[in-house]
């Protein structure tokens, strides 16, 4: 199937690049990303500084790598939290129904009434200072999307006869949920998780752009973009590097997400 969808390959390659940049950023970078060196301020890209330096003389490439580590781990942890808890809550809520389901739906609808980013900004302000603040804020903001998708899936599946068959076999509800319903929701959950990762990555960048991410001097893509604004005329590489990183990563994730969706759709139809 990959052969018929080259964009899927592109997506995977970009995603692999982003993840390896993040890993490199966490282990070792060419320069210390927070090292201030006034003798080399605002240098253009060169062999020594591949992507130039910023107004504090810090190496942009190193900051980009270290920013990748932060952005990817925030987006990754958010996605993980949302996937695990959202899928569990959605599956349980859709399966048992009744008043529990009604409460969950009402709660999720209340959260959905706020734009995710606004909700995240409010929550980061409350949790100010904590390094996990953006993760928790984004996880809460995106949870309703996952709950809804999984719940809807489980509710249609509950009508299928193999769930009735499980009841005829006197299987417990818990067993039916774990053995029959969960494995059949893996595909939509994975598809949802890929797009979530993209949303979370973008939202993390937006939060840092607004100064609500991790405190400086820690590097983040959104923060770098924000800092570059004053020097755009003299040092455009300061804006181009994080800008290309953010949009490139998003494009890759979306291509990969589309590929996943088509793959599972086709598998379902077979």
């Amino acid at each position: 199937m990959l052969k018929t969808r080259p964009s899927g390959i592109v997506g995977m390659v970009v995603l692999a690049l982003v993840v390896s940049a993040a890993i490199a950023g966490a282990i070792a970078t060419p320069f210390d990303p927070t090292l201030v060196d006034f003798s080399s301020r605002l240098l253009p890209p060169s062999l020594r500084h591949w992507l130039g330096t910023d107004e504090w003389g810090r190496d942009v490439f190193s900051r980009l790598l270290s920013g990748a580590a932060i952005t990817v781990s925030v987006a990754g942890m958010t996605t993980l939290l949302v996937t695990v808890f959202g899928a569990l809550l959605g599956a349980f809520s859709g399966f048992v129904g009744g008043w529990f389901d009604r409460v969950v739906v009402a709660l999720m609808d209340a959260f959905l009434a706020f734009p995710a980013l606004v909700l995240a900004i409010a929550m980061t302000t409350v949790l100010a200072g904590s390094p996990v603040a953006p993760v928790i804020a984004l996880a809460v903001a995106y949870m309703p999307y996952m709950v809804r998708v999984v719940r809807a899936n489980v509710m249609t599946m509950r009508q299928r006869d193999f769930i009735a068959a499980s009841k005829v076999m006197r299987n417990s509800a818990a067993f039916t949920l774990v053995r029959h319903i969960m494995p059949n929701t893996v595909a939509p959950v994975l598809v949802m998780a890929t797009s979530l990762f993209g949303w979370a990555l973008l939202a993390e960048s937006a939060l840092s752009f607004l100064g609500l991410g991790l405190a400086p001097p820690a590097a983040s893509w959104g923060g770098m973009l924000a800092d570059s604004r004053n020097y755009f005329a003299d040092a455009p590489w300061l804006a181009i590097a994080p800008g290309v990183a953010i949009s490139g990563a998003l494009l890759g994730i979306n291509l990969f997400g589309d590929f996943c969706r088509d793959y599972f759709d086709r598998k379902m139809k077979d």
Partner: protein
Amino acid sequence: MSPSSSTPVLAVEGLTIAAKGGSAIVQNLGFSLKSGEIGALVGESGSGKTTVGRAILRLLSPALSVTAGSIRFEGHDLVQADAGIMRNLRGRRIGAVFQEPMVSLNPSLTVGRQMMEALLLHEAISRREARARCLDMLERVRISDPLRCFNDYPGKFSGGMRQRFMLASVLSTRPSLLIADEPTTALDAIIRKEIMDQMVELVRELGTTVLLISHDLAMLSQYSDTTTVLKGGQIVEHGDTRDILLRPRTAYMREFVAALPKRPASGFTEAAEEELVSVANLDVTFRTKPTAPFAKGGTVRAVQDVSFDVRRGEVVAVVGESGSGKTTLGRTLAGLNSATSGTLDGPCFIDSQTKAVPRIQMVFQDSHSSLDPQMTLESIVAEPLRQDRSLTNAERLARARGALEEVGLPASFCKRYVHELSGGQRQRVGIARAVVSHPALVVADEPVSALDVSVQRQVLDLLAQMRSTYGLSYLFISHDLSVVEEIADRVLVMYRGRLVEAGPRESIFERPRHPYTRRLLEATPRIFHASDDTYELAIPSTEFSDAPDGFIYYEPGSANGGGLAQMVQIDQGHQVLCTPVAGLN
């Protein structure tokens, strides 16, 4: 008009239809229909019969195209004709009725508006005339209140009514050719007969030529003049309908007709006396959703005051139309619904309350939906053994493989998944799952209704074989009387949630008493094996006989005497729903 004019209305010659860049779906097909003739196209699913109908209408899916041949209709070649001519012919000269009328009707427009649309488009008449013609057509398809239907939306009506609207609408432009693709397949027997009768009467009157596409041989042999049999896109046989179906000559047709359900030799196997299930005064009520905000939801009595028993080794069939409560009854026995009142007794239920291996299993109509797509076949079949603590996992899988082999799926199938199987194979897996734990009773809910005749034959044989191997009892739920006549020892007839007649198979089929049972039997033509290679079409006619002294037959739904209605014994094991004359006001 009589079917005597010499030039055919429709002449198909050398028609070949192929998938884009792929194999041929229909190959070198040729047949013709004379004016006023009702011709049938028969075949199993995948034989290409629907594709031919679509090709005549030039409504083939874009993936298919006509690669050779011609379709001649009233001087046009429908293969070559340009889109403008086709638009003009479709609807005006060629009408079409399909299986699911709701797909062809727009739910947001009134019935009348949709009927008038075709007339106004194709004929130079005023709205007033069009309206009058439509109302007249509605009356001719025997709709009792045409004006009300004319102004209402299609969603309010039953499937049978919608199909009547379609028929009235299509025939209102007096087309010379009608293509009817499985027009009554989705309908209950009694409605099916009514609609077919009306359709045939109307087209004979209007002189319309009909191409009837169906898989239902008994129905075709009653209504069509000539038949073309398709197999894998090629003609197997063509000729007079009765000749082809009742005196089949080709090997394929012989097999095809022989696969139909058989009337068993008279005298039935004596079941053991042991009572497996005893149901008394069962009521199942569902709550319905409120239709308006703040309104209270209503209740529906899906099953009302039903009593019967099933003995060990016996096949009890439940027949009735859709909505009669037969499926609810079966699901209640299998533990999928709970009884609102009444009792379920017997060894099956006592065992299943302890957590032992369930004594009741179920086979579903939709084999695709009833098997978990993420599991291998062996783990699907092993699942009912999960609660048998005396077995190890390996032993469970081994028994599952044994059961799969027994239903005709060799070891190579064990690790496969549901989507790799055909419909018949899936139903075999469903049966293997139902019998692997050696239950006492299997509730089979329309297990062969979705299958082609030849596959249906295999599954019926398999069910019979499983029954004799394991001494199973079946509660066999079906709307198809010919299948029931083959397999059942006793028959329960349900209508509107109530049991209206119950008795041994022979009594029910030979001496039906209740008016509903008689209507049902008369609406179900069946093909019977007469001698070595000839068959005979039986359209049962039943005789009225009086209800027992002091009683009259009670029709569920009629206002009078429902509360007093009871099953009255009229013969050995034969009961019928009656109400005492004394209790009527």
